[in-house]
């Protein structure tokens, strides 16, 4: 049973961490521009050195 006392808080803590991260993302506008975020990764950095 000591295992449970350790594992349940860990499981809950990880879940809460995920929830907190989600709320942070909501609040900082990470969901404002879903299409743009998907496309932005394809933009080449300006002035990058030639291969």
């Amino acid at each position, binding site marked *: 049973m000591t295992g449970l006392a350790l594992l349940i808080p860990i499981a809950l803590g990880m879940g809460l961490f*995920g929830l907190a991260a989600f*709320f942070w993302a909501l609040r900082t506008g990470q969901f404002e*521009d879903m*299409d*743009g975020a998907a*496309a932005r990764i*394809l933009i080449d950095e*300006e002035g990058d050195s030639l291969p």
Partner: protein
Amino acid sequence: MSAAPQIAPAQERTVLVVPGMHCAGCMAKVERGLAELPGVSAARVNLTARQVSVAHDAGVTTPMLVDALGAIGFPAQPRVEELAPPPAAVKPLLAPLGVAGFAAMNVMLLSVSIWSGADGSTRDLFHWLSAAIGVPAIAYAGRVFFASAWGALKHGRTNMDVPISIGVTLATVLSLYETVTGGAEAWFDGTLMLLLFLLAGRALDAAMRDKARAGVDALLRQAAPGALVVGRDGSVEWLAAPQLVVGMVMRVAAGERLAADGEIVSGQTRLDNSLLTGESAPVAAAVGSAVHAGTLNLDGAIDVRVTAAGQGTTLAEIAKLMDASGQARSKYVRIADRASRLYAPAVHTLAALSFAGWMLIGHAGLHHSLVIAIAVLIITCPCALGLAVPVAQVVACGALMKRGIMVKDGSALERLAGVDRVLLDKTGTLTMGRPVPDPAVLDALPANAAAVALALASHSRHPLSRALVEALAARGVVAAELAEVAEEPGQGLRARWHGKAVALRRPGEAAGMATVLDIAGEPAWLIPFADRLRPQADAALAELAALGIEASILSGDNAAAVAEVARQTGLTAQASADPADKREAIARLQAAGRKVLMAGDGLNDGPALAAADASIAPGTASDVGRQAADLVFLGDSLDALPRSVRAARRTMAVVRQNFALAIGYNVLAVPLAMAGKVTPLIAAAAMSLSSLIVIANSLRLVRAAR
């Protein structure tokens, strides 16, 4: 929208709408192009809203930014503030969805251990933990439903949220009681899962509406946003439309739309009123003529003294008519609400009956009877029913959007599916609404003459020149090299080509729209322009007929012009209809029991679009037209009409199947619940399974728009 944090408050921020952006390359070009301007410190694109937010010094003006974007190939418009999008519908649902998801997963984890045999103090501990997670989560995530149910009950009505709220509240209270008294079962898991599924359905519905609205808003914000205003001292300043005041003089170049009503004080031109009246032939205007907002200036630059701006324009009159027209639409009750009107009383009766039955006949005691009644409530909670409509509509709207048809909300699809009559506006809807050069003449042009014509036309912003450029470029013509190009407003363009004088000019006294191509030493070419039927108009009308939808033309244009199009399409027509006539024509058909689809584009179609059971407008329509219409289609082809009707009918077929599946599940599960045979495990599994089946069935609509 997105407040970019890196923008310093001391600077000015301008939001421009750039409808042409749709990929990473566009984003990079726009951001870099703007950032290179002197005085601009940052530019950040929001691709979803098709906007770019620019931080710049006070010395940089909006037209400078617009010109810079135009130079790199992206037409842009300043954002019209009144048309700034309303707050997103999905955003307030995301946080409850996250909380419900987190809580449901953790409580389910604890429940699985209880089902697999945990008992005694371990079970009590797990129940307490579930309660600690579940009760706050239910209170938070359930607010959406509680608020809506309370709003309905206050007005003596009931909706889908009433049984949900009652079921959720009762289940939570009883689970708490079980936990406190150390009982064997608690229902936090089932309750949270129920909330999770229902919130997911709501969020999908809201996300769809947001997405479609973002697309439509991007188009809306292209409306004539302002004008160059000439001051007393001759200085010229650009002002946004809301800042225009009666008495100002605005300078309107050829090819621009008027931003306000007024009277011409200098210059003469021809005006295209088609957006306002549906009348397709250009009207000559000179000093003293009254002109209206939304009119396109075709030929020469004019100065116009503003006589009415903003809400005082002809536009406002039409807006008043539109306000009075939305009656039929606001009376429409969505299918999900219709279903819940029958469903909610049935569920409550069943739960009450099982409680009374077990109390009186089964002698089961208060506690046991209550448990069974709650099991009935939980298992009948319209989980699959709540998903049945939104998921199907979201999938269908996504499919339509890929085909360039934007649906403003789910109820539009429901209304569109029932349509059996279509009225089509002529100018701009059945036809392209813009001059197109005669293809027969273009075919006959020798290659070098075509190259010269393209080169000349590309130097002008005149609507005919632009139509010529578009048509010739589409034929693969490459522009010739010209020297000494000069444009004389209202007259045409002159240049030298291999030493020969060439010109693209206004024809002498030829009737109708045309342009003349002169090449020294060769006979002149007359290129006539006309408004033509949209591509595939005949095929689209034939398809509509095959769908059992009778079509006719309802136009504000004169009888002769309408008769010509009626002859080409074989439709019956009503000509010279003003906005009120159009609205009456629709009311007559509705009174006769027909469900009317209105397809129109102009300001004059606004009231009719608002009055019809469903309405569709092309993307090139006036802002009023796009705002009033349920669906907006991009691209030229009229094919969008039968396509969207077919998709709407398929969607409704799937919605009905989904209802059948959800009700079928209840028919199986309710007797078990009433007999007291349902454990929380079975309830949770059955609920998820029925929801998954409904989602899977809806996904078949991915190909609905073919």
